[in-house]
């Protein structure tokens, strides 16, 4: 049994992803970064989260702390940038829209990768579409993408990997157009951990069963794999053989929570300041929730001290079940603030915090007001409370609309609406301007 042989006709999956996405975004507006080693740093300029090809060639690894690289940066001609999430978010939206124009359907998988459905066609048409996607994103948005096309998502990921690592393919690989001998050679050579969804631990366990390469896994008995491992890995085997059986991300069981968490540039050591943090984070999580059309049943709030700090360690976490599933930012903020407040140890310096929304369900189920959001309901109970819930829903979407038009800091609940970022907000010493989202930060063209 070799790769993808069970499907030679029918529709295809394309996996399109941007090469070194964060670095590529920076390069669009700063030509001096071309051909130079560039790294992008995590929150608070902590460690490397993205590398240009040149930085990879220097042997710089993802996760390397910046303080280790900084003294050598000049000698290496290395440039660092802080994460510019506003820029990456805007560029991602542009890239995804361009990609979507080429498919029958689209599933945005992460900030820089998307699956695309290609209707049934003759094999050369798949590669032609893939090349057209790559050319369009390069020309319209300015960033390079790689495209892998195959009969299943897992194989599309594999094809994308081949496109990325074989220069002569020019960033595009439709599995069906590769000579069968080449494909077999690649599948026999690549370790099984290169397969989408197969981690290091599963890889070790597979090796114990004599399954080392991608080809070995494709040839494994699916029923046996299910028994020894999991139904997910069985699906992976079927996908490698060309049978598409991985559901879209929204329908999968692992899309079960929404998290918004950050580290602070300066520690937070008062209850009032932590209430501000929770207000901001809970709103951010709530807006992700409503953007996905979901409601939450449980709000979890947590905070933590630094692992490296000398003083007292404190990692409070509290889960607040809501009376009813909701996407109302006010209810979510209240739960997060009140929940965590009681658990904080006064005087302890917290360096990170977050809000997790879980027990997610689709919004749209009838609201029955139990929230008591705007005071006591009228005597007739349910209808008035229902009206309050409706008012809260309207307020929630208004907050979202205003933010969309005027920016994240334009309006909010409590401290979430502050104009000047509080001093615990992220340190971004090497940030490029917000070229595409701030009028004062527009890229400059010299005349």
């Amino acid at each position, binding site marked *: 049994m070799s790769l993808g042989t069970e499907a030679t006709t029918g529709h295809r999956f394309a996996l399109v992803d941007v090469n070194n996405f964060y670095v590529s975004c920076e390069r669009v*507006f700063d*030509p*001096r970064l*071309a051909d130079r080693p560039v790294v992008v740093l995590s929150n608070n300029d902590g460690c490397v989260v993205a590398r240009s090809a040149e930085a990879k060639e220097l042997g710089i690894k993802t996760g390397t702390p910046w303080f280790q690289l900084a003294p050598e940066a000049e000698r290496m001609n290395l440039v660092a940038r802080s994460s510019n999430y506003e820029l990456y978010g805007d560029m991602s939206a*542009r*890239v995804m*829209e*361009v990609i979507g124009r080429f498919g029958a359907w689209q599933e945005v998988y992460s900030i820089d990768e998307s699956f695309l459905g290609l209707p049934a066609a003759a094999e050369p048409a798949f590669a032609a579409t893939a090349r057209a996607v790559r050319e369009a994103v390069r*020309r*319209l*948005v*300015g960033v390079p993408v790689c495209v892998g096309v195959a009969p299943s998502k897992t194989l599309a990921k594999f094809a994308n990997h081949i496109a990325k690592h074989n220069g002569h393919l020019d960033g595009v690989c439709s599995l069906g157009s590769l000579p069968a001998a080449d494909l077999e050679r690649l599948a026999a050579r690549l370790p099984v951990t290169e397969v989408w969804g197969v981690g290091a631990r599963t890889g070790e366990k597979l090796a114990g069963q004599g399954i080392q390469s991608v080809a070995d896994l494709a040839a494994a008995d699916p029923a046996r794999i299910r028994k020894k491992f999991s139904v997910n890995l069985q699906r992976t085997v079927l996908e490698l053989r060309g049978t598409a059986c991985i559901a879209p991300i929204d329908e999968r069981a692992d899309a079960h929570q929404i998290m918004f968490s950050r580290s602070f540039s300066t520690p937070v050591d008062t209850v009032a300041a932590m209430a501000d943090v929770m207000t901001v984070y809970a709103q951010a999580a709530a807006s992700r929730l409503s953007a996905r059309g979901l409601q939450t049943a449980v709000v979890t709030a947590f905070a933590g001290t630094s692992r490296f700090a000398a003083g007292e360690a404190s990692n409070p976490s509290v889960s607040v079940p809501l009376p009813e599933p909701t996407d109302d930012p006010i209810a979510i903020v209240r739960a997060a603030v009140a929940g965590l407040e009681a658990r904080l140890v006064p005087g302890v310096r917290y360096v990170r915090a977050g809000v997790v929304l879980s027990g997610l369900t689709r919004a749209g189920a009838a609201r029955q007001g139990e929230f008591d959001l705007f005071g006591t309901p009228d005597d007739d109970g349910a209808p008035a409370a229902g009206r309050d819930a409706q008012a809260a829903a309207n307020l929630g979407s208004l907050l979202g609309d205003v933010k969309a038009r005027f920016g994240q800091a334009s309006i909010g609940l409590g401290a979430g609406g502050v104009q000047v970022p509080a001093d615990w907000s992220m340190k971004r010493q090497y940030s490029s301007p917000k*070229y*595409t989202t701030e009028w004062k930060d*527009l*890229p*400059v*063209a*010299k*005349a």
Partner: protein
Amino acid sequence: MTESIDGAESAGVLRPRPATGFASPAGDYYDGGIDLNRHLIPDRTSTFVMRVSGHSMAGAGAADGDELIVERARAPRDGNVVVAVLDGELVVRRLRIEAAGPVLQTEPLPPSPPVRTRVDGELDVWGVVTRSLHRL
């Protein structure tokens, strides 16, 4: 016809009666104001805004501090004002495509003379400038 309507029947439109007061007579015609995005940004994936720094393109209508609408979707042609990559910088210039190759040309206000830069090798045009937003 037992449904209550607000008199728009003759126009072929049935509308539920408003809860209170009179409908604005302009309501049927109001369809939102002029949306500059619609007119200035033909494709939101490939249209960018940049700001001019310097005086060498004032003669072309791109003065110091003006905002430019830059479209990446357009193929650059002879005579276009373009944003190009020159010596690691984004520059605004008039593009001339000549027999000997592309030329980037400044266009200052008279009496300053234009400066022509012949590009050796491949010219990297970032986008075509379609509008200048000039503050009066």
